[in-house]
């Protein structure tokens, strides 16, 4: 089928056609463009423009000499990181903690949203939801102080263990407990906040579907399984892909606050390792190199996850 020719407009090539279309769209929706301008500007100024600083990962950065003056050293700091005695350990710990967080921490908000959605009492629902958001806003330092207090031999958690006839122990000094404590406290802190998006997704489900299901004799569980879950599947998949894209980024604040030499074996992650190395002599080049490695690895994982998702389900980020 040949291109429809509209009298008066000549389509020379696709670029001019694009510019034409863009121009028309701009004229019609210029308010929208203006609204998004600050956001785009923010990303360009604070996220894209600073990327040129990545080069210090390949340089021996000296603040006095600045970006341009510092000498190139190529892959020296990358090498230093990969050859570090603890490289294997921190990489493994980072991945393990992230994967456990994915397995346990990812479904938790979904479950929470689904369960709370079934509650009929609206006021109860609102209260529980609001209270569940609160821990998210408490700083990591306070949370870790509380955890420390609870986990000592005469702390709250040990009191409960003793009540059930167990033996008291210093929980945070045992390697076996670290991941559990770290991830469980993370779930507690972020459960409510992360469930917000699922709540909003659930609220968009067409009520008629439920009516039809009830007429077909579906009980509550069946309704959730066959209607609610499939409807929020796109949301779940997108968030899952995004989580996979940050697999190598375990934040160091909480780790540093909770670990000690007795648990380094499982608790020391890439970010805490770099924090210690970088603290000496402000080794920014080293930090930048490792950061770049992290970002590239995460990007690869993200692309992979996206591609697989596109093949398996029809949902994908792009």
């Amino acid at each position, binding site marked *: 089928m040949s291109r429809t020719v509209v009298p008066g407009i000549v389509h020379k090539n696709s670029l001019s056609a694009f510019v034409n279309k863009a121009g028309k769209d701009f004229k019609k929706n210029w308010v929208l463009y203006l609204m998004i301008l600050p956001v785009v500007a923010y990303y360009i100024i604070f996220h894209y423009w600073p990327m040129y600083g990545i080069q210090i990962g390949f340089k021996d950065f000296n603040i006095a000499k600045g970006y341009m003056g510092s000498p190139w050293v190529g892959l020296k700091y990358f090498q230093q990181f990969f050859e570090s005695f603890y490289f294997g350990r921190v990489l493994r710990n980072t991945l393990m903690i992230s994967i456990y967080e994915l397995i346990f921490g990812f479904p938790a908000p979904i479950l929470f949203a689904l369960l709370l959605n079934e509650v009929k009492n609206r006021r109860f629902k609102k209260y529980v939801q609001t209270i569940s958001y609160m821990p998210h806003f408490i700083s990591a330092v306070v949370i870790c102080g509380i955890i420390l207090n609870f986990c*000592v*031999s005469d702390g709250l958690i040990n009191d409960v263990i003793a009540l059930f006839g167990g033996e008291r122990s*210093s929980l945070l000094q045992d390697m076996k407990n670290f991941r559990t404590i770290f991830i469980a406290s993370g779930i507690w802190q972020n459960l409510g906040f992360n469930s917000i998006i699922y709540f909003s997704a659930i609220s968009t489900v067409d009520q008629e579907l439920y009516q039809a299901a009830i007429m077909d004799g579906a009980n509550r569980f069946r309704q959730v399984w066959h209607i609610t879950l499939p409807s929020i599947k796109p949301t779940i998949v997108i968030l899952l892909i995004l989580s996979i894209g940050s697999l190598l980024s375990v934040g160091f604040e909480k780790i540093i606050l909770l670990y000690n030499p007795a648990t380094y074996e499982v608790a020391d992650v890439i970010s805490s390792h770099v924090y210690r190395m970088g603290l000496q002599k402000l080794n920014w080049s080293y930090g930048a190199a490792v950061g770049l490695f992290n970002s590239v690895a995460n990007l690869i994982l993200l692309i992979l996850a996206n591609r697989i998702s596109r093949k398996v389900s029809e949902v994908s980020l792009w």
Partner: protein
Amino acid sequence: MKKTLLKAACFTIAIVTLFVTLTACTEGSKTGSTTLSTASSTTSATVTTTAGNEPVYPLKTDVKLTYWSEMNPNVSANYKNSGDTPFTQELAKRTGIQVEYIHSTTDEAFALLMAVNELPDIIEYWWDAYPGGAAKAVADEKIIILNEIMEEYAPNYTKWLKDHPEIARQIRWDEGYYIGFPAVNGDGTINIPFMGPEIRKDLLDKLGLAVPETVDEWYNALNGFKDLGIAAPYTGSKGYRTDFIARAYGISLGDMGTGGMYVVDKKVVYGPMQPAYKDFLTTWRKWYAEGLIDKDIATVDANLTKAKILDGGAASTIAYISNLQTYNNTAREKLPEYKMVAAPMPVLKKGDVNKLSYLSNPYTPSDVLAVITKSCKHPDIAARFLDYLWSEEGNLLANWGTKDKTFTVDADGKHHYTDFVLKNPDGWSIGKVKGGYMRNYASGPFVQDALTGLETFQIPEQFEAADLWSKNASKEHVLPPLRRTAEEDEEYTKIMEEVKVYSEEALLKFMFGTMSLDDYDKYIVQLKSLKIDRAVEIMQAAYERYLKK
């Protein structure tokens, strides 16, 4: 009508958001750039340079200096800028030099400052933060060396260096430079260890035991505490855990920031690798297994430890002399017979002397340093200003403050703080009074008088502690301040970072029993594979350079 109103509203909101974002950007960059518009004015200055007959101070000059430093919490609690304090105002009056104080606002402030071309006249900071140290800053033409101007314009400092050749040798850079005015803590004549073992005397009395002196006596005492029902006979927050018993075995650990390196017979050694370390570990592990040491010792922080010490959950620890005051005064409110006293550094056999005292050097290269920058147009005036604190009156002002207001002189010529300092009528802590009237609230470019520490003692336990710990106190094994070259430093830092992690982990594993002492040899092999020998080599080289200086 409604539609256009809505459109107009959207338009306005969009524009406003845009401007807010952009101003936020410029705002950020403005606070980043230092407010250096007030550089030293260049009006002609008349300076009396002869220190012989005419008094040098106050200088008759119109020059105004800019002084960049970090604001200390003891000062910022009550003053907005250092220039507002009675101390700096008195200093300006006495020297005749007006100074504008600029304070850093963020952690990166120093780094940002270094990137600027026009620097303030004087910068007081921890110059270790500059990559390559102060010597590199000289090579990069950011700051100046004092060698040429110090005889004439910093006579007090020069004289002090001549009177203290040993410390002068440590201060002087290998290249022969004198860079800036350093912080010196005491002049080495008074050696009171700053911390040591502390134990509950009242509980010892109940058990009928004397204050323990040997490792075995400590074992008995801790067992006694355990029988009294104390959950953690010995405790210590994350930094100060195990060192004092190790020192009885002649080993200094990585605690206290020494990195575990010290000197034995002119050779640098690494504590956690010495043969006696295994003996120490055997003892320490036994004590932990028997419940004599806080079960949570690896996780408790300073607050938890303090709470335990105060409420009787713990009966001994390592702490500072000043802590004795806090512990005793606070705990006695609930338990009048509470008595925390200092115990001597433990030894293996009765009569031995523990030579590994908790002493530090008067001068540490990583301490704060006030330098004159290359941008300073009147380095002579800047030198005179900084030199004042090295004169007798200046030193008095910095350490003791103003006569009759903050200190008095008794019949023997000794100085004492007044009640204005010790029991301030407005309720200010000693630190905050110092923040306003003196300079020794923190290290600074002057010599701290060690006697001021004794002045803050309030209870007899503190005086006894000072006496006890200074008896036989020895600096024989303390490493003098050493400077490594840039390449050495990089290699050393890399090695020690990994060694530190490994040895800390191993210590705890041996202590808890997770790693058996039969594997001790494997531990040594692993340490060596982490290149600890190379690190010791580097320190040895730096040490030998120092001896030859």
